[in-house]
């Protein structure tokens, strides 16, 4: 038994033919690329997130709030909002 030479046995037909060094290189290249992908993805995303809330959206929400208060004051109920009828729960595709 020379099992102690190989902590893990051959994993498949490729294991015997693949050069250890090549496999190692490919693996580390892969890991390096994966780390890069993860950080690039977050960087791309956070570039936008870090811009905060553009003013147009603050204005929009304030306007909606004001309209709701006015509608409430004038006796219009929540149904007054039903300008948009589509429900958001339309799970397309």
């Amino acid at each position, binding site marked *: 038994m020379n099992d102690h030479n190989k902590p893990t046995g051959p994993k498949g037909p490729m294991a015997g*033919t693949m050069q250890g060094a*090549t496999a190692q*290189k490919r693996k580390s*290249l*892969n890991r390096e*690329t*994966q780390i*890069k*992908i*993860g950080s*690039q*993805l*977050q*960087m*791309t*995303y*956070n*570039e*936008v*997130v*870090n*811009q*905060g*809330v*553009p003013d*147009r*959206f*603050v204005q*929009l*929400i304030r306007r*909606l*709030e004001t309209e*709701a*208060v006015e*509608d*409430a004051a004038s006796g*219009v*109920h*929540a149904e*007054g*909002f*039903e*300008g*948009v009828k*589509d*429900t*958001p*729960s*339309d*799970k*397309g*595709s």
Partner: protein
Amino acid sequence: MSPNPNPSVSDAMLRAVPSLRAFAISLCGNVDRADDLVQETLLRAWANLSSFEPGTNMSAWLFTILRNLFRSEYRKRRREVADGDGSYADTLKTQPEQASRVEFEEFRAALAKLPQDQREALVLVGASGFSYEEAAGICGCAVGTIKSRVNRARTRLAELMSIESIDDFGPDRELKAVLSGGGGGK
């Protein structure tokens, strides 16, 4: 159910805006269109507040609405290809450092090449911080589907980026041989 606006609801909506924009930009690749998509999402959400279950994740709910809006819009104007041109980077207030600028552009280009299903799954899980379960809820598919989409996205990106940045790793005959199409093995 009074129409009285609940401040915590509007605050939660506003808090979700930065990540909604980031998600929207990753979907359509254009800042102006993304912002319109976010605006429409907020209007749609506001009009349908009664269908939001209090206590559940407001952010996930808004992402679901945004994704559905994008999907239906996308179906309408399919001929229009998402523009991956400068409009995105140009709008960014803080540019990445020059050194990483090229990499940044390369990454965006690679990301834009992914199929839409894979890109959204990767962004939801890898950047928006949603769990696989939440991402599955947002995309209306099984958790296993999200997992395999994320894996395929990562593999594909790794392929695209390995090829594009091959020189970063210096001369490497074995890899070059593989890339140039000569069967590297044996």
